[in-house]
């Protein structure tokens, strides 16, 4: 490993170790008086380190870096295009959460668990080893379950989550063991490997809230603190597991594995179903839960595709929907901390109570449903075009999902903020730290939407490396096989 690669691995280790170290310190009670400052400082360092990984990796030539690949074929440390996209993204989401969290829900144990979850997620994004992924899958699920169970009134949600995650983890464990028992596991073609692939696919379906295993998604958003729900769903560890264990090793030019084809189809249905149910929710948290489920399914549907455009669209949706849903979640959390839970069965009249939060909610909502000038517009364009290129019904379902999401967001905004209200009633001004967190997320969405060039190039690189793993270690660009270019396209 050369010096550049070593620096990338070192920075990745720092990005993982800092939140874990921060969690250890906070759990001792040493920072109880300055809990938020400690958590924010920890996450800022982690974000800088994660950003450093991305910068150093690109400076090093953009080749996949692996280390420790002696045990059952996986790499304990694997940094490629996908890693460099997801590490800063996950750190950014966590930073926004700890920055904007209402004071009354901040406690040392909860913050420590959030940081442990973040560290485990960052570690997962930096490995491709099947057993390391399995272990980190378990840690992230356990952190979510403990935090939900510790919340007053959260036991029901914790129970639903536990049922889903126990099943998913069992399937994941069995599937991973079967996969690695059929060497070379990356291209498992024997009966054990095929069975393992299907079991991993089922685990991914459950963890990603794909119909019919989706019930934990709205339950978690309804019963857990917003920080826990966002930290559990926005990084999309199941999508990452699917990429490393199922998608990244398929030769897409030869067509899709049956389990991926199946995953893609059910994810498409879930994307439409989630967006449609978001339209008729009676509680704001239910709305966010179903919207998040729809967007998450959209990512999986795109990842299971065979065209660079579709895969790039999925990666773009991964980031854009994560940032926008985190924004919506944080605004909701801020509103709830001032005036309690929000229902959607009639207009709630919150506009004059918190006009700035209303503006942020609208911007995040629209930014998550294809507002021109935001990253989600780019993401929607890529995924719709890619899906229509791949299969007509897929493209139409993706389009239906984005249409329904947009309508659901607009309806939700009017029902939360519209309605009779006392103009001279008390106003709840947005707090500086809330404004900072929300502005930073919004800046990311608009900045990357107005000037998407560098991100889109990085996403394209990551997509190419996933589609053609052999080219990943040879650097970018990889040749595009003629079979993935639509036949109708006649170059000028």
């Amino acid at each position, binding site marked *: 490993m050369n010096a550049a690669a070593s620096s990338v691995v070192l920075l990745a280790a720092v990005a993982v170790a800092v939140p874990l170290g921060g969690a250890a310190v906070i759990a001792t009670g040493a920072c109880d008086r300055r809990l938020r400052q400690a958590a924010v400082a920890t996450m800022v360092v982690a974000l800088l380190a994660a950003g450093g990984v991305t910068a150093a990796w690109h400076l090093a030539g953009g080749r996949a870096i692996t280390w420790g690949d002696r045990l059952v074929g996986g790499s304990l440390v694997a940094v490629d295009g996908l890693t460099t996209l997801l590490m800063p993204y996950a750190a950014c989401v966590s930073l926004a959460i700890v920055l904007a969290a209402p004071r009354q829900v901040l406690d040392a144990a909860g913050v420590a668990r959030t940081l442990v979850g973040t560290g485990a997620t960052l570690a997962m994004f930096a490995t491709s080893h099947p057993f390391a992924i399995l272990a980190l899958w378990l840690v992230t699920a356990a952190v979510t379950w403990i935090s939900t169970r510790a919340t007053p009134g959260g*036991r029901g949600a914790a129970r639903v989550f536990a*049922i889903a995650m126990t099943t998913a983890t069992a399937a994941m464990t069995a599937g991973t063991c079967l996969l690695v028992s059929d060497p070379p596991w990356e291209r498992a073609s024997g009966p054990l490997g095929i069975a393992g692939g299907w079991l991993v696919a089922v685990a991914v379906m459950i963890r990603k809230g794909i119909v019919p295993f989706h019930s934990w998604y709205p339950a978690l958003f309804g019963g857990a603190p917003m920080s826990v729900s966002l930290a559990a769903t926005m990084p999309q560890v199941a999508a990452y597991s699917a990429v490393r264990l199922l998608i990244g090793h398929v030769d897409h030019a030869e067509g899709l594995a049956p389990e991926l084809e199946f995953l893609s189809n059910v994810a498409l249905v879930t994307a439409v179903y989630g967006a449609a*149910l978001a339209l008729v929710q009676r509680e704001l948290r239910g709305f966010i839960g179903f919207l998040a489920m729809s967007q998450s399914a959209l990512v999986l549907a795109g990842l299971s595709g065979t065209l660079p455009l579709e895969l790039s669209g999925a990666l773009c949706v991964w980031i854009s929907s994560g940032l926008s849903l985190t924004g919506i979640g944080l605004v909701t959390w801020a509103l709830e901390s001032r005036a309690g839970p929000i229902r959607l069965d009639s207009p709630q009249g919150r506009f004059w109570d918190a006009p700035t939060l209303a503006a942020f909610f609208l911007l995040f909502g629209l930014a998550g449903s294809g*507002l021109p000038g935001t990253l989600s517009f780019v993401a929607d364009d*890529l995924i719709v075009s890619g899906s229509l290129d791949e299969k007509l019904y897929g493209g139409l379902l993706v389009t239906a999902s984005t249409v329904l999401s*947009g*309508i659901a967001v607009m309806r939700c905004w009017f029902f939360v903020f519209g309605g009779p209200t006392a103009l001279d009633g008390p106003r709840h001004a947005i707090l500086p730290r809330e404004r900072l967190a929300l502005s930073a997320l919004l800046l990311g969405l608009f900045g990357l939407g107005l000037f*998407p060039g560098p991100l889109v190039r990085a996403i394209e690189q990551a997509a190419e490396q996933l589609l053609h793993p052999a080219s990943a270690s040879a650097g970018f660009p990889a040749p595009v096989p003629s079979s993935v270019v639509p036949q*109708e396209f006649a170059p*000028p």
Partner: protein
Amino acid sequence: MTHHDLVSMLVVAQLAAPAAALVGIGLPALFGRPLPEEATRRSVAAGFALGFLAATATLALIAARGWRAEIVNVGTWFAIGHHEHTINLVADPLSTPYVCFSTGLCWLVNAFAGKYLHREPGFTRFFVLLAVFGTGMNLMVLADSIDVLFVGWECLGISSALLIGFFHERRNAIDAAVRAYTTYRVCDVGLLVAGVVVHRAVGSGAFERLFTTDWPDGTCLLPPATAQIVALLLVFAALGKTAQVPFSAWLPRAMEGPTPSSAIFYGALSIHAGAYVLLRCGPLLDEAPLARGALLVIGAGSALHAAVVGRVQTDLKSLLAYASMAQASLILVEIGLGWRLIPLVHVVSHAVLRSLQILRSPSALHDRHELEAALGGPLSAGGPGLIGLLPERWQARLYRIALDRGFEEMAVGRFVVAPVLAALRWAAGLEDAWIAWLARERGRGPR
């Protein structure tokens, strides 16, 4: 500086001026420091004024060169493989006069709204949305690619829905805004899918790859079958914003918004956005007899519907909404007949007249009294019209149909919206019950 550079700079200025005004008043408002009323109004006025002056200068420049189209390539927005989004704008005999007209109208309405909304709690919000609309409108009109056109088109839809729901304390305003946005969003699928089809067909969304850009005499460069599909999708997209049957129920309810926005959106610019897109893509329609036939049938039907229903409206803004719809429908018929200049003249003249009528509508009684005082007697009630020639029994039936707004809203509500919502609520109830059972929560069950 060459002629092309000068035109490019002016075309970019037409977009940048209202966009700068939007940022100038939007950012302080987002950070809790909205500008004072006068500064807000003046900022937006300056944006529109600069845009108008830039458009007028562009008009003079391209007129001096024999109305030759000037294509401005601002750059590539993003590209993946063969899928490339370029920001292409065009200054030609269609776009430049249209920007002069639309920006000028926005400028006038801006002046009117400054007084009309004085001390209104949502003053800044109105002007932010007006700036979004102005920027989106210029983007749509100047677009030389279907991608840029879609961006502008979406800005129109979002600003329109938010302005319909401007008085969001009222339930009617909320329902009207959600209804309008739903209609827009459904019909936007046409434009979205048309964009994808175009990219697949020629590898780019640039209009110069779809048809020759010598408006109004362009010729289609796409194969007939592709042109037919794209044209049908564009017609579908236009139906929503132009409020054609069966997507027209949102228009009379859209008058819930403030009068200045009703004037600029539903009397002047937004209602004609679909017609503009079809005029821009006219060469595609020339190769698409099916799409032109659809325009003729739907346009004529909608015109008849609006003319009949509009006659029995009891409030002025609804009456004006149906009058707008009737004229917009006739414009679609003209486009369906393959005409170019007549619909363009029709758009401009109708927009000017209708926006004036809507802006004056709050003072209609005052105006009437002034006229009567000037004439020294009551104004005539007007003639019976063509309907008076029908047998009385038919007149009664027609009256009933008109009162029920042609049963359009009832049919769409009962046979499309209600079943879909009922199915979704049933599914949501099952979801709740299932989650409650899993969570062992008592008292939580189906809705």
